[in-house]
C-alpha cells in the first residue's frame, strides 16, 4: 500500500493496522524520516522549513512500482509507504516505510531498499527556507551510491 498525503501519520497505528489479525508476522521494520536541520554540519543558516512538491499521479505510480519491486525481491507479509508533501518544519515526520515479514532479515533489507530509493529517486522536489531565503535543493550524486548497491533502476510509471 502507498499513500501520498499532506497530513502527518502515526507509525504505531500504521504498524498495528498493517499486521492486524496476522499470526505469521515475526518482524516489522519501520523507517520514519524526519525533516533535519543540516545547518549545524555546515556553514549554512538554520533551516526554518522545507516544502516538498510532487507530481500527483506519477509520484504515486512510481511509489507503487518500487513497492511491488520490493515485494518481488523479498518475502514480505505486508508493506506500506506513506510520503508527505507540502511545508514541514525540522523535527516533523516526512516519510514512513513499513515492511513486515516472517523473518527479520527480509524486513530489514526490504525497508532499507525502499528508503534508499525514496530518498534519492522518488519524484519529489525540495524547497528549503532559511534566514538566507528559499532555494530548491539540487539532486545529490552521493546518494546514488546507496541506491546503486541494490542495482535498481527507477521504476517506469504507469502510462
Amino acid at each position, binding site marked *: 500500500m502507498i499513500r501520498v498525503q499532506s497530513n502527518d501519520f502515526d507509525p504505531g497505528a500504521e504498524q498495528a493496522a498493517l499486521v492486524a489479525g496476522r499470526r505469521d508476522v515475526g518482524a516489522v521494520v519501520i523507517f520514519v*524520516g524526519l525533516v533535519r536541520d543540516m545547518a549545524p554540519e555546515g556553514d549554512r543558516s538554520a533551516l526554518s522549513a522545507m516544502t*516538498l*512538491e510532487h*507530481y500527483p*499521479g*506519477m509520484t504515486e*505510480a512510481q511509489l507503487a512500482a518500487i513497492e511491488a519491486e520490493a515485494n518481488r525481491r523479498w518475502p514480505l507479509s505486508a508493506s506500506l509507504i506513506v*510520503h508527505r508533501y507540502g511545508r514541514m518544519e525540522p523535527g516533523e515526520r*516526512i*516519510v514512513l516505510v513499513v515492511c513486515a515479514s516472517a523473518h527479520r532479515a527480509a524486513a530489514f533489507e526490504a525497508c532499507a531498499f525502499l528508503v534508499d530509493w*525514496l*530518498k*534519492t*529517486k*522518488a*519524484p*519529489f*522536489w*525540495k*524547497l528549503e527556507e532559511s534566514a538566507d531565503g528559499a532555494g*530548491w*535543493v*539540487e*539532486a*545529490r550524486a552521493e*546518494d546514488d551510491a546507496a541506491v546503486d548497491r541494490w542495482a535498481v533502476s*527507477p521504476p*517506469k*510509471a*504507469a*502510462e
Partner: protein
Amino acid sequence: MRILYFAWLRQRTGTGMEQVTLPDDVRTVSALVEWLKTRSPGHAAAFRELKTVRAAVNQTYVKLDHPVADGDEVAFFPPVTGG
C-alpha cells in the same frame, strides 16, 4: 495538450499547468520546448539550461527526442531530489 511544470520550472513559467494547442510541426519534446520558450520571458528563463530539465510524457520519463502528440500530458521538472 496539458503541460505541467514543477519546482523552479513552475516558478519561472509562473504556472503549474497550462493547456496548449500543439502546432502541426511540433512533434518531439525538444521541438515543444523550443516552441514553449516563445510563450513568455518566464518560459524562456525556465528552459535556458536544458541540462537541468527533465521531461515525462504521460507520466513516464522520456528523452528530449521523444515524440509528442495532442492529448499527451507532458511534464517538465528538475532532476528529482527524493523525499
